[in-house]
């Protein structure tokens, strides 16, 4: 088990850990994959550059699951982080131990939020386009977002303030003017007054998670915030559509790892096809292979309209459903995961759990909406409502 994949000295007082999806020039970036073991990038993630420029020190790289699509980091080529029979998450361990004041990483499929919920830490996945993705290892570009994990809301907000801002090097990065326009059309208030709890997401969670939910609801209510239980089937379908979009994009993005230019190359490569196939087959793990093949299938000529195009339309429906909800409510409260801990052998019994447990994380991923995980639960808000979410989450942090 590896918590740190690299460490480096920094004189800065405030130390930040980068997860291993963030490219660094002075430390290797493997994205948890044998394919990139030892890979030294010529680029530095814009997010990390901004941290450094603001006087923070990057103290090392936190281990991640292979291309960050798994549950908690269990698919890393550097071994499964686990202790006492439960799965651990490297970045969360680092923040919890105080080795770094915060971790900056790429939220691809919710592992950062699940870890924050289970460790009782605070994490923010800001509105898509707020933080530059330049210098991150691309996986599911239409929804993945640079995120922050810290011990408390104040630290989380402090780091996000440094990270947020337009970057010319990322075509999906929002300008100030664009942010303002979207903020206005979303009708963002500065405070959360009404919160919806969607029943489709609260059924079937374990006792401890339910407890967190209840505690949050209670704290919100006690502070005069209206909490309403509603049913919303469309948003619950986000997971299925996200699995399609994420896998297809992943398939395409990791196709560049072919043993030719850098990274792992099979010793058994007498022809170009052997080089490709053996390198990829030997270097990629099972979950990644599953996602690649599934994603490829959704894009086949036969399936494109039925599956991929359908998922793009469902994404719109999910987004519109949130839009409608936000006419009545300021935020949606939901779990970040179904369990307060995963047993270390969970993927043996539930092999595809990364594609089911993301029920809770897919809604914010597929829509690009901001979400703050605190007190073991998530609060999803309108675009650019991070401040309001932070304020509300303080009540149950």
């Amino acid at each position, binding site marked *: 088990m590896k918590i740190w994949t690299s460490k480096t000295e920094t004189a800065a007082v405030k130390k930040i850990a980068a997860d291993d999806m963030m490219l660094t020039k002075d430390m290797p970036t493997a994205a948890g994959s044998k394919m990139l073991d030892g890979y030294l990038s010529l680029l530095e993630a814009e997010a990390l550059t901004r941290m450094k420029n603001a006087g923070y020190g990057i103290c090392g790289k936190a281990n991640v699951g292979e291309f960050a699509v798994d549950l908690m980091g269990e698919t890393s080529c550097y071994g499964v982080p686990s202790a006492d029979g439960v799965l651990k998450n490297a970045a969360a361990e680092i923040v919890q131990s105080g080795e770094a004041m915060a971790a900056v990483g790429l939220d691809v499929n919710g592992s950062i939020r699940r870890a924050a919920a289970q460790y009782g830490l605070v994490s923010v996945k800001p509105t898509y386009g707020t933080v530059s993705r330049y210098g991150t290892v691309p996986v599911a570009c239409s929804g993945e977002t640079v995120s922050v994990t810290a011990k408390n809301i104040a630290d989380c907000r402090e780091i996000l303030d440094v990270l947020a801002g337009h970057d010319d090097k990322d075509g999906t990065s929002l300008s100030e003017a664009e942010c303002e326009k979207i903020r206005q059309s979303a009708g963002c208030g500065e405070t959360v007054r009404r919160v919806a709890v969607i029943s489709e997401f609260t059924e079937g969670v374990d006792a401890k998670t339910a407890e967190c939910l209840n505690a949050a609801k209670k704290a919100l209510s006690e502070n005069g915030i209206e909490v309403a239980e509603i049913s919303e089937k469309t948003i619950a379908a986000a997971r299925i559509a996200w699995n399609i979009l994420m896998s297809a994009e992943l398939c395409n993005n990791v196709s560049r790892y072919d043993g030719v230019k850098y990274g792992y190359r099979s010793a058994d490569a007498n022809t170009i096809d052997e*080089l490709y196939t053996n390198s990829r087959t030997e270097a990629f793990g099972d979950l990644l292979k599953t996602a690649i*093949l599934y994603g490829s299938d959704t894009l086949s000529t036969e399936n494109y309209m*039925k599956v991929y195009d359908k998922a793009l339309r*469902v994404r719109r429906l999910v987004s519109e459903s949130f839009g409608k909800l936000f006419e009545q409510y300021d935020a949606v409260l939901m779990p970040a995961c179904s369990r307060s801990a995963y047993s270390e052998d969970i993927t043996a019994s539930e092999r595809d759990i990364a594609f089911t447990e993301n029920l809770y994380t897919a809604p914010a991923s597929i829509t690009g909406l901001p979400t703050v995980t605190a007190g073991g639960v998530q609060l999803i808000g309108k675009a650019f409502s991070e401040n309001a979410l932070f304020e509300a989450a303080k009540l149950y942090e």
Partner: protein
Amino acid sequence: MEQDTLRKLELLNQLSLNEVQKANLLAFFADREKELDVLNAMNTDDVERMVHVMPIMTVVREDIASQPFSRDELQKGAPDTNQGYWCVPRVVE
């Protein structure tokens, strides 16, 4: 999902699965196939596809060339290079 489709997917994606992986994958595909019913129950006929979550447009850059990376740096971690080229087993066209 047929074995044949799976084999084609392996070829397309330059992967080779063992028998256990194949069996697992077929089960995985079957689960996803079932889930599609949920999406199919949603009427999306008049729904515009959503590729990008933010309603913004491309900001183009000016056509100015620069070359800040050197070939030596780029090829530092390369498995096989020769005279400035990346090398692969001979490709028959």
